[in-house]
């Protein structure tokens, strides 16, 4: 039996941070909550469109959609200050949009167009918008946890109060960099928040079959002198609350937090993967806990008018339509970009 399970049994510290099923006490003000809803709906519509465009051959290469995991990205983004840093994985569309990167530029990047967020040089797996403090999407598992530490270290030395928030998957908890990053963050008391989006699957392998503990992140927190924090990743109020606590702790100089948010990807791992390796009952159970209708109902209950919700939904659709059209209208990037920006001088020359 893992320690975390122990603690749950005893109603220990981990339980406090859990919020499964109900909004935690002290939920966010209603404007924040409607903005969370707006973000989630935009992400959902964007990802669905990206999938359609992939099937049409307009989105190239690979893409890893965040469908189903919106409540993590939105809850955290809502709690972050504009000056905080985001580090994400290849499954980073949600996080990029959540920080305010323009939808058209993100879509154009997926399509490999000049108007792309990085003019097509990075692609879906490397979305970056420094202007929005979205410090990058990283496609090799593990590395960015150590890089997020660096931003936090720098913030600490510079005394800015900025916090780095780093998102990654359950599978990432088994790679060496995870361990190194967590230990360093703890001993240096860095203002960093590590968020494991536990969607239960690596690519095609269930995380439980390759992990020595039940909760790949939370059950390892003690190894770094940290308290386990487990949160319902499909409940945006819960993720917002967990984010607020962790960000506050980081800003207060109390060091890192490791949050495990339990969630699920609605689709396959990437591209056209139908995700058929997953048990149908598991898929259905999680679809029934789709974070978006759940949150919609909760907002309605809280008194948000149906018309407000509708407007949000319609606006999101229009925004995605406009963004897709704008992206599709952009030409492919200029060939000169191939040899540009290896160096700060704008070029790529290795000789003189």
């Amino acid at each position, binding site marked *: 039996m893992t320690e975390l399970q122990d603690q749950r049994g005893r109603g220990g510290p981990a339980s406090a941070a859990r919020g499964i099923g109900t909004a935690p006490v002290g939920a966010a003000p209603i404007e924040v909550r409607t903005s969370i809803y707006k973000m989630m709906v935009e992400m959902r519509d964007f990802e669905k469109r990206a999938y359609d465009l992939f099937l049409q051959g307009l989105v*190239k*290469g690979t893409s890893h959609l965040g469908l189903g995991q919106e409540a993590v990205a939105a809850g955290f983004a809502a709690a972050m200050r504009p000056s905080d840093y985001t580090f994400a994985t290849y499954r980073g569309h949600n996080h990029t949009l959540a920080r305010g990167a323009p939808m058209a530029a993100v879509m154009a990047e997926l399509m490999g167009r000049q108007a792309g967020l990085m003019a097509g*040089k990075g692609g879906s797996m490397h979305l970056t918008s420094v202007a929005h403090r979205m410090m990058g999407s990283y496609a090799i598992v593990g590395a960015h946890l150590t890089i997020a530490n660096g931003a936090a270290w720098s913030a600490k030395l510079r005394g800015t109060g900025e916090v780095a928030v780093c998102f990654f998957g359950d599978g990432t908890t088994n790679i*060496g960099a995870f361990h190194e990053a967590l230990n360093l963050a703890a001993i240096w008391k860095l203002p960093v928040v590590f968020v494991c989006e536990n969607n239960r699957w690596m*690519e*095609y392998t269930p995380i439980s079959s390759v992990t020595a503990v039940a909760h790949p992140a939370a059950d390892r927190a003690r190894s770094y002198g940290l308290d386990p924090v487990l949160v319902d990743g499909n409940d945006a109020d819960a993720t917002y609350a967990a984010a607020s606590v962790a960000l506050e702790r980081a800003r207060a100089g109390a060091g890192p937090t490791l949050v495990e948010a339990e969630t699920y990807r609605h689709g396959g791992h990437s591209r056209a993967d139908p995700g058929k390796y997953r048990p149908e009952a598991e898929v259905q159970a999680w679809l029934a806990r789709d974070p978006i209708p759940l949150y919609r109902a909760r907002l309605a209950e809280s008194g948000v008018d149906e018309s407000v919700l509708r407007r949000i939904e319609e606006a999101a659709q229009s925004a995605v339509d406009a963004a897709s059209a704008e992206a599709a209208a952009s030409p492919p990037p200029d060939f000169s970009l191939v*040899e540009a920006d290896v160096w700060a001088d704008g070029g790529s020359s290795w000789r003189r």
Partner: protein
Amino acid sequence: MAEMTYRDAVARGIAQEMERDPSVVLVGEDVGSAGGVFKATVGVFDRFGPDRVVDTPISEQAILGAAMGAAMTGLRPIAEIMFSDFFAVCWDIVANEIAKTRYMTNGQVSLPLVIRSANGGGARFGAQHSQSVENWAMAIPGLKVVAPSTPRDVVGLLAAAVRDPDPVLFFEQKSLYPAKGDVPEGEIVDELGTAVVRRHGKDATVVALAAMVPRALEAADRLAGEGVEVTVIDLRSLVPLDVTTVATSVTETGHLVTVEENPRLCGWGAEVASIVAEERLFDLDGPIVRVTTPHVPLPAADALEDAAMPTVARIVEGVRRSLQ
């Protein structure tokens, strides 16, 4: 003789060797019931079961360490590193441990193991999933380095790699997975370190590897239209390197062009060029030209990636430059 894809040839080669030798095991991420993310190990799990075909966590160092320790003690593992870019997360095990152990122990330890990996660009995956890193491996003493260009060679060279008593890095070129070719029935076992002349011409020698072989052949076709006849050599293996075949051809043609997916600096083409510049300098009638990816990380957008990798047009231009 059946036509099959390069992808299916991988599974066939693995199955051939696992069938023959019970000490051969397959280990890696999603290699088991999922059949590999490139579907190159489909059917292997069903045939040989979970003891011999093992899925792992995302722990590349642990995967290769396990392969090494197993090879030291009686197994012949085939380990998969999903994308060759990921060698960077486990390079210590490859370059510092696997490559050096026989030497450091004065021959006490044998490491009969194969590490397969999907290599190279063309899939619009961006800079971290598209590198051709066979030159990283070539630079490390103690590693054999193989990169087939046809389905038949996949089976034969994989078999040779598995039977080899030394560690072999086996690069499967991503862009070739869907390519089809004839593969004879029955057991196929090839020989490491043997290049193949894919086309013969007296005007220039073009040396290529993996996905650059079909491109070089296309360039040769185009050049033939201009009356230029080139020899195209498929190296197939970088270590051992078939210097004899290359040098003999250069002596005949007087011109050498290397075509590699590696970014420019310290790509394998540099090594081949330096050997010829040392051993056959006086046979050369023109500059040695290297056609490479420019020294840049690969861009993701299709238009940019296509422009970055060596194109048929650039190979043609390279041959012309060497002939001037």
